[in-house]
């Protein structure tokens, strides 16, 4: 086991301090400029493909492949108009469907996975190691091979062509990825907090809600963001469970613009794909506020 970090108790002399501080200020500014420059270049490089897609969404169909540059030669809003009303169903329907499924998935994961993580991370129970291993095992199974048996199962329930197969599993913590994530975050919190709460007479439930949960905000935020993104962009599961196009989610809608043997509506595809980034990005920006510094030490004091 790694050693616990020990802080040096001896205090440096005042003179050492001053000189060190001056050195630090100079190098800090240079480093800061360097850092910002590098970050900016990297950022631009990172989003170039997305900028290209944005540009393409404003190009007329025959220009998309003809001119590979970023900026359109002719600007047009056609793609957005046609894309929104593609194939008789408004993309608004798809956005609404995706919103419902995603929102419920986020709630489900947040509740179920946190509860399970607390049990795995803080409580003791029989065969805990075995259950933990089984939980991890479920992450390792390739999705494609359980999809058929699961489909048959849900078909027996009569849940085909509903949102239920997409949502109910989230409330039953089937996304073990997040259980494991939160266990890891949990385990970096010192046990003294729990013990302090216990001394005050709190049972496991109160400890969970009043002490641990607030400190897990970064983990909860991460769970929420990832669930949002993965559910929003999930293609395969909605593909097989949703047969009625009016229930399609956004990825299914986007896919309908493609026609491997004919004319794909690339312009509409890019336009709607750009739009569909909106909610995801928006959610992420809002959620970022909650990725705040932990206040772990207040428990100690």
């Amino acid at each position: 086991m790694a050693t616990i970090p020990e802080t040096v108790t001896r205090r440096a002399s005042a003179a050492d301090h001053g000189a060190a501080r001056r050195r630090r200020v100079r190098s800090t500014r240079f480093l800061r400029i360097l850092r910002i420059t590098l970050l900016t270049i990297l950022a631009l490089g990172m989003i170039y493909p997305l900028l290209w897609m944005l540009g393409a969404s404003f190009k007329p169909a025959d220009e998309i492949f003809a001119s590979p540059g970023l900026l359109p030669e002719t600007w047009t809003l056609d793609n957005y108009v046609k894309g929104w009303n593609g194939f008789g169903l408004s993309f608004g329907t798809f956005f609404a469907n995706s919103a419902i499924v995603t929102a419920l998935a986020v709630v489900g994961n947040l509740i179920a996975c946190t509860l399970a993580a607390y049990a795995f991370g803080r409580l003791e129970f029989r065969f805990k190691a075995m259950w933990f291993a089984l939980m991890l095992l479920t992450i390792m199974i390739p999705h494609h091979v359980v999809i058929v048996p699961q489909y048959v199962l849900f078909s027996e329930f009569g849940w085909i062509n509903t949102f239920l197969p997409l949502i109910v599993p989230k409330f039953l913590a089937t996304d073990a990825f997040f259980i494991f994530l939160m266990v890891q975050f949990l385990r970096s919190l010192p046990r003294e907090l729990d013990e302090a709460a216990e001394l005050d007479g709190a049972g496991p439930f109160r400890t969970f809600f009043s002490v641990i949960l607030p400190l897990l905000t970064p983990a909860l935020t991460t769970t929420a963001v990832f669930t949002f993104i993965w559910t929003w962009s999930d293609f395969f599961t909605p593909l097989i469970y949703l047969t009625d196009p009016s229930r399609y989610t956004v990825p299914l809608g986007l896919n309908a613009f493609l026609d491997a043997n004919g004319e794909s509506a690339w312009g509409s595809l890019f336009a709607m794909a750009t739009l569909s980034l909106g909610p995801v990005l928006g959610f992420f920006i809002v959620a970022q506020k909650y990725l705040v510094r932990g206040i772990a030490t207040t428990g100690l004091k």
Partner: protein
Amino acid sequence: MSLTSRPISRRAVLAGGLAGITLPWLLSACAPEGTGASSTATSLRYAFWGGESRIAKFAAIQDLYTKEFGVTFNREFAEFFPYWERFSTQIAARSLPDIVSMTEQQVGEYASQLEDLSPYIDSGKLDLSTWGQKYIDAGMVDGRFLQLFLGGTVPSFIYNKSALDAAGHADDPNEWSWEKFSDVCVEIAKAGGQDHWGTSDGGGTSQQFDTFLHQKGKGNFVDGEIGWTPADLEEFLTLWADLRDAGGAPPFEITSEYSAGPFEDREIVRGYTVFQVGNHNHMPGLQGYTDGTLYNMTVPVVGRGDRVAMNAGTYVSLAATGTGKDTAVDYLNWFINTDAAIEIFEAEYGGLPSADANDTLLPIVSDPARRALEFFKSVDEIAEVIPPWPPQAAQLLTLIQQANESVALGRESVEAAAQTCFEQLSAAVG
């Protein structure tokens, strides 16, 4: 209360739970095929693959039907590969849509889950009287009529007539031998310089191979079995290897990049080639992006073979577990025989099995589509509809592509590649 007494009973409960959960599932998967409920329905589930324009066409046609007959439709669409992914899961759960789209490559695989339509044909409810006989025969799998031919495409070459004329060849390439075709390709490539070839690479396409085989009286699959020997494949791969080596067809890299790319960005569209391996009914789509007038041609004849044209159909079938079969048949009958429907659908799947229907379309379709349709009619006499493939046969598509890649990359000799392909296909098809 000791803790040791609990685990045993808990384990028993777990075991019971497991059995309780897995057994019903396994049993249902092994369940005998359900028989469809009633024969009529007020609503039908119709599944197909395709993009925007096809979705719109089906919507228009089926709205017409609804207005006249009151039956509503739930259209379930997806792109080609996702369609079959969803299809597979639905098969496992015995919950296929009432009417499903089908091709000859898959029908052998799913035959037991599809409804035999012979009674409907015999009784005349499904009126195929205007059809060519070969299109009716194409629907038969082991004596059962399982798939209805809705349109056929001829896998062959599309060519840029303007470019060909400009290169000094104004005669009809439909009359050419493979040797002449090969020479012309090399000539065009040399004249064009860098980034110019005669034709796109067709060595990895099972349909080109099929046509080549039929010229010799053979075929990819004959009577449910592999209809060729490694020597045939060797000869075929050599044709294309020679063409590549002589510069008439592009090297592996080019083919790989454009075959994985979008339809609108093919070699012929970019002006890299004059000939393009493809399905004849793709020509109108490509025309929209290409400079120069596009036409169709059959695959040039190799050696002393006969000129043939294969016909790859897109079909519909009825699910054995579906509902409203009588209603479905009535709709299909209306679809194939009513001018209004034909005129909306046009040649979406290619040429129609009824000569009358094709003639109805000729005056109303766009110029490129008319050229395609005329080509389809012109090859009708020598055209053979591709018969249903045996189960597992779909592996041929990948295997022949891999064989061609191997040869093009210089990883395997033609003999070895042909042998591997044959062996692996034999192992799969059995």
